């Protein structure tokens, strides 16, 4: 990367907030319960630990609703626990239990690299939890979703209304007694109108204007609605509305078999769809306790990195389009086309690949995979370099992006940010480094970090990550393709090879049962994560032992990031808001599932 002036002598330190230790299992939080109970602030029996799953799944505590708020504050501030990030909040419906609902909180401690799950059981007629916004700001939208999907009230929430479903919707769709296909029509009179106070503040000379941007707007990527009060060009107050692409992934997952969910996962972050496949398959493979063969692991790593490059190309390309630099969009879309060629030769589809299967891949790699990949490694860098040259020293771009919507690392962590946006604010957290999976811990690569936290840095860090991904792919190609099967050799998990199916009765029966009933995943739950192009993409999967998932919750990386959007743009110009939105890389399919 070029510099505009000689670097200063003292660069800011790598944020000390991130642990340098990598974790390969989940035992880091095992001692925390003793620490918490030793404080004496919580009555006995209000927090109990679920027996450890031998480090395969997170430490889980069952918590009484009454102590939840204090416990959250304690977990965050106690120097021995320091859970500074809330990853996910979801609800689960157990209609057979006395306490029908469960609110499940997933916490992460960046300094200790420890993970914790809190479960709060709730009665059906008294389904309410206290709002934890005072502890973790990023829980805002998660709590609204809890209400929307399950009807669990959140007391103390400033804006308790539906977030994903429309205003005319009745009922709570993720409850088990809600019919998956029951729709409600939204009529014009029920569309949400924000209640802004136009006369608040400001002077009497100029009138303020309330403006609605989106959802059908090019800069809003087609599906976000921004309602803003403008004072001239400055945004003084704003509110974001989402839900315009809510496609009911989680309910669809409950009505389809384990393998049939994979095409749905493709369409979550559709710019890098293979990574979603990998994340989901990895989670179910953990529940099944199967080991993916080395060939599939190798291929998954390479294709995930190619998908990451694709996603960063789209993000940077559209950011520049939104700020007026259209040429870069053409230059950055060409690498995507080249990678599409590779993906299409593997599985037959360009964008929504559905290439992963539980246990490995759906098809073996094509014979020309190595050659195609090497050719891509030569084709991509010149195109990316051209795109960089156009904006690198370009004062127009620098003026539009440096210092725009800057956010500090501490605040970003509190909001629940992960991924390149967080790394652009100085926090070096990457799931591939902190909790390595596939082959990432055997390769030589770096986690890029920048300190400005503004749009310029979010753009640049994606360019740096593209280069790191190319480095990873090159090393894997140099290592060579491992021989062997491309899917696990267990007939209860993977379809038997077709030759066996055509000739042997036993294989035919396994094939039939797998297609008709689905994989019988043993009862249990787990949360596994991968580093998506936007951040930590987590899947919280609960199985009840049948061929269909009981509950799948996707932890979308851009959900907390986008909830920060009003805070980022208030006080800035309208054009800065557009540049900010581009840099955050919010993919609606993932945001709203």
């Amino acid at each position: 990367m070029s510099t505009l002036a000689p670097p200063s002598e003292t660069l800011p330190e790598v944020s000390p907030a991130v642990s340098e230790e990598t974790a390969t299992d989940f035992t880091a939080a095992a001692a925390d319960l003793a620490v918490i109970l030793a404080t004496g602030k919580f009555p006995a029996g209000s927090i109990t630990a679920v027996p450890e799953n031998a480090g395969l799944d997170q430490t889980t505590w069952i918590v009484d609703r009454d102590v939840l708020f204090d416990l959250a504050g304690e977990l965050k501030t106690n120097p021995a626990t320091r859970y500074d990030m809330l990853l996910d909040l979801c609800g689960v419906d157990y209609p057979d239990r006395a306490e029908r609902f469960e609110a499940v909180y997933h916490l992460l401690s960046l300094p200790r690299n420890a993970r914790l799950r809190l479960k709060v059981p709730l009665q059906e007629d008294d389904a309410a939890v206290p709002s934890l916004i005072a502890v973790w700001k990023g829980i805002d939208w998660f709590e609204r979703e809890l209400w929307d999907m399950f009807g669990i009230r959140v007391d103390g929430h400033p804006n308790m209304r539906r977030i994903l479903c429309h205003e005319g919707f009745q009922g709570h769709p993720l409850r088990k007694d809600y019919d998956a296909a029951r729709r409600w029509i939204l009529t014009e009179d029920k569309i949400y109108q924000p209640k802004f106070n136009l006369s608040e503040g400001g002077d009497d000379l100029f009138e303020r204007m309330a403006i609605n941007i989106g959802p059908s707007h090019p800069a809003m990527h087609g599906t976000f609605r921004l309602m803003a009060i403008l004072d001239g060009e400055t945004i003084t107050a704003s509110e974001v509305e989402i839900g315009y692409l809510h496609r009911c992934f989680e309910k669809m997952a409950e009505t389809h078999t384990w393998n049939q969910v994979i095409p749905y996962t493709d369409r979550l972050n559709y710019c890098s769809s293979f990574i979603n496949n990998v994340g989901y398959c990895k989670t179910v493979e953990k529940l099944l306790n199967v080991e993916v063969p080395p060939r599939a692991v190798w291929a998954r790593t390479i294709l995930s990195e190619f998908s990451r490059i694709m996603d960063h190309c789209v993000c940077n390309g559209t950011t520049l389009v939104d700020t007026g630099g259209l040429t870069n969009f053409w230059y950055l879309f060409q690498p995507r086309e080249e990678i599409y060629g590779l993906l299409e030769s593997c599985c037959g589809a360009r964008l929504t690949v559905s290439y992963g299967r539980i246990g490995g891949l759906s098809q073996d790699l094509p014979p020309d995979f190595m050659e195609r990949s090497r050719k891509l490694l030569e084709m991509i860098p010149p195109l990316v370099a051209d795109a960089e040259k156009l904006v690198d020293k370009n004062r127009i771009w620098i003026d539009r992006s440096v210092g725009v919507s800057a956010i500090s690392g501490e605040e970003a962590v509190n909001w629940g940010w992960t991924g390149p946006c967080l790394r652009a604010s100085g926090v070096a957290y990457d799931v591939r480094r902190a909790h390595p999976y596939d082959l990432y811990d055997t390769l030589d690569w770096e986690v890029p970090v920048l300190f400005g936290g503004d749009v310029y840095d979010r753009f640049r860090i994606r360019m740096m990550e593209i280069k790191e991904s190319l480095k990873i792919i090159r090393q894997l190609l140099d290592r060579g393709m491992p021989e062997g099967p491309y899917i696990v050799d267990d007939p209860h998990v993977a379809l038997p090879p077709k030759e066996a199916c055509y000739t042997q009765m036993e294989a035919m029966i396994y094939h039939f049962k797998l297609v008709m009933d689905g994989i019988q995943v043993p009862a249990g739950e787990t949360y596994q994560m991968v580093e998506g192009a936007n951040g930590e993409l987590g899947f919280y999967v609960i199985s009840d032992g049948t061929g269909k998932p009981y509950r799948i919750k996707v932890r979308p990386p851009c959900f907390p990031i986008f909830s920060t959007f009003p805070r980022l743009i208030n006080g800035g110009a309208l054009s800065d808001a557009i540049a900010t939105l581009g840099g955050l890389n919010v993919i609606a399919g993932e945001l709203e599932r």
Partner: protein
Amino acid sequence: MSNPKNPTSSPMSNMVGESWVTTKLEVLEDWAQRNSFWPFPFGTACCAIEFMSTVSSHYDVARFGSEVVRFSPRQSDVLLVAGTINDKMAPVLKKIYDQMADPKWVISMGACACSGGFYRAYHVMQGIDEVIPVDVYVPGCPPTPEGLIYGILQLKEKVLRDRRKHARHDAKEQSEPDKETIERVDAGSTV
């Protein structure tokens, strides 16, 4: 400016009266119109990414006259619905369609826009033809850029055919969703 006897005639022929000159001008006008569709990309999901690929240099839909993608309904004539439209977005889609000036056409791109795709779900519209009339359905999930271009070419053929038969499609003049659909869905129909 339309002639009630022949609603498909152009404003020019209404002013001057039918003659050889205006007939040829109409031919020219129609030729220009169908070779310069300006799409309004109502892109919501994955199909929008494939649409972006179509306008990129690898496929370049500008070769067919769609050089400008106009994000304003007043300035475009083809509403290209790319991506899932759900019940929250349906009034927005209807409003955009109503705001477009005649003549206008609709291309429904991708399985979700055509029929709801595999989202038989509580928040997804099972095809945009619940609220707006559709001229061309392009299947695929997402359709390849070539598939989309094929759909645009089919629309061109359709416009040519309709011109020859003096038939223009007529728009549903409603700004609310169909009352029957509301009643049916409120009664619990899941279709």
